[in-house]
């Protein structure tokens, strides 16, 4: 549990963050932001563990974390169902637990910070429709969709939200859907073949920025990048992130997927420091569109 800081006598808090997979740029950005926030407050010892995209590993990790009794546990679950039980165990052990962006099956947490991928899908879909309207004067056109790993919540909802919009316009067709597993290299490979099979493409909608950038690389090689509007999701800061790609003119737009840890720590800090504080069960974070217009400003904000 939290012990006394020997130097100051001030109470030190132990915050544990069970990250599902460090090895994704989005997750790395989350870790970075959380580290900054915690070090700013001075009395928080933060430990980040990496589930390495393996649910069993993440469960095992949380099990060992429970033994170490942190003052606050933040979990970014790799998968919904499997983590439900172990987070229940953490709650039962009296550890305040915050669940990030993926809802588990039972509400075994003190608070849940949600990001609405379906809403993001709808925003992206609407943006694409607007672009097509601008291009043709009416809503028509051909879209290529590059999907993330099938079955993952973000993939399902970013797909579903966008399609809800597309379906209102019979002349807008998704002519090719390919799975590129969130990867820039796969996005590029798949797009090369798609470009061969589809002589006309107006928009590429990537479920994340790297896949959209990969598609851009492929189009560039065939000299068709000027004819296509590339849209991504995530809007990470830094030179490798999607915002920079919008500034570079590679992507027409990207949609900020909230890092969520800032909100989580805001709630967490109050739970640690305000004895009477009862958090809400659920906080929903909203996305933001990033285009050339606001890219520079967002880049400043989200680059650490």
């Amino acid at each position, binding site marked *: 549990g939290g012990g006394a800081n020997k130097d100051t006598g001030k109470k030190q808090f132990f915050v544990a963050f069970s990250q599902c997979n460090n090895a994704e740029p989005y997750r790395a950005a989350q870790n970075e932001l959380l580290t900054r926030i915690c070090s700013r407050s001075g009395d928080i010892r933060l430990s980040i*563990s990496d589930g390495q995209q393996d*649910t069993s590993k993440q469960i095992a990790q949380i099990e060992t974390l429970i033994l170490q009794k942190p003052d606050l546990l933040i979990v970014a679950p790799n998968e*919904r169902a499997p983590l439900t039980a172990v987070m229940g165990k953490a709650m039962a052990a009296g550890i305040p637990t915050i669940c990030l962006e993926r809802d588990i099956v039972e509400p075994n947490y003190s608070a849940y910070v949600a990001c609405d991928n379906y809403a993001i899908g709808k925003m992206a879909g609407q943006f694409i429709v607007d672009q097509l309207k601008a291009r043709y004067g009416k809503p028509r056109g051909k879209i290529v969709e590059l999907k993330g790993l099938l079955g993952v919540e973000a993939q399902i909802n970013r797909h579903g939200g966008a399609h809800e919009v597309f379906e209102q316009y019979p002349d807008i067709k998704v002519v090719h859907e390919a799975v590129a597993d969130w990867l820039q290299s796969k996005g590029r490979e798949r797009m090369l073949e798609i470009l061969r099979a589809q002589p006309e493409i107006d928009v590429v909608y990537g479920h994340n920025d790297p896949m959209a950038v990969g598609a851009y690389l492929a189009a560039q090689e065939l000299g068709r990048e000027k004819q296509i509007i590339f849209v991504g999701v995530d809007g990470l800061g830094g030179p490798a992130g999607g915002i920079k790609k919008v500034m570079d003119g590679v992507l027409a737009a990207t949609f900020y997927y909230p890092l969520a840890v800032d909100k989580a720590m805001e709630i967490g800090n109050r739970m640690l420091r305000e004895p009477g504080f009862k958090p809400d069960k659920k906080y929903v974070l909203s996305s933001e569109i990033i285009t050339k217009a606001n890219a520079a400003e967002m880049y400043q904000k989200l680059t650490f």
Partner: protein
Amino acid sequence: MAIDGRRIFARLQSVLGLAVIFLLAVLFSPKSGAGDRIFLEAGNLTDILRQAAEIGVMALGMTLVILNAGIDLSVGSTLALAATVTAMVLTRWKTDLGQAGHIGLAVLAALAACAAVGAINGAAIVSLRIQPFIVTLATMIGIRGLARRLTDNTNIDLGFGQDVASTFAKTGSDKTLVVVIFATLAVVCAVILARTVFGRRVKAIGDNERAALYAGLPIRRTRIWVYTLCGLLSGVAGVLHAAQNHQGNPNAGISYELDAIAAAVIGGTSLMGGSGSIGGTVVGTLILGVLTNMLRLNNVDSNTELMLKAVIIIAAVWIQQIRISPLARRKT
């Protein structure tokens, strides 16, 4: 099978690596509030066993395959198939067999499917004369596709209610049950290898296939059975996986084949076939389990963890074999 002194010595040695890792884990274990070493807490030690059990069960089958001079890359996909089939039968079928009957049916269906995958592997290897690596690589790819297709790319949740699926998940994730299943299967496999005609043939064929041919051993039949058993054991691992994770996930078990092979090989089984043991594989599984637990308890940065893991795996394997005569490990 008579046992002479040298073998017992070799066996002791193969525990040496495990012992060293165990000691390291104790030494570096963080302490709990009460000052106890967390690593040594009963809860943690049994956690290790439980966590190791899945890979362990697969590694048992893998050991049979490797002893037979083969390899099975499809075990991870087979595990996913078992998990999804179990979950589907539990959540989507209606039966009037009662909960126990329904669960039995689900498990049987999963195991049968996995045994069939193994049998297909074996049959393709013996009848088309294609290297096991290629055949099982193909089934690894194909069965993954099948599992995803069966579930339409979704995870099937088993839930936390009172229904049959939840009951299955609750029962099947019981620590004792999981560990007992692993232990039982290990003993069964060890007995098969050491005490049955079949087991001896498995080794003999892997040891020298031409001699086996000359001796008139039923090479094809034996081989098909070996892969069938391996598939079956991956199925068991898959059922456990489904229960423990409360879901049937078609993307489960990716790259588990490497862990299963590693457990067998760390335990002293030679990839050239013919030499190795189930005991060794259990030790190998535990080495990997303790190693992972040790690194995690200490909350090592995950990239550092990977680098440390590399070094420790090599060190552990090296310790296990340093004193074994160099002659014994030459390819003959």
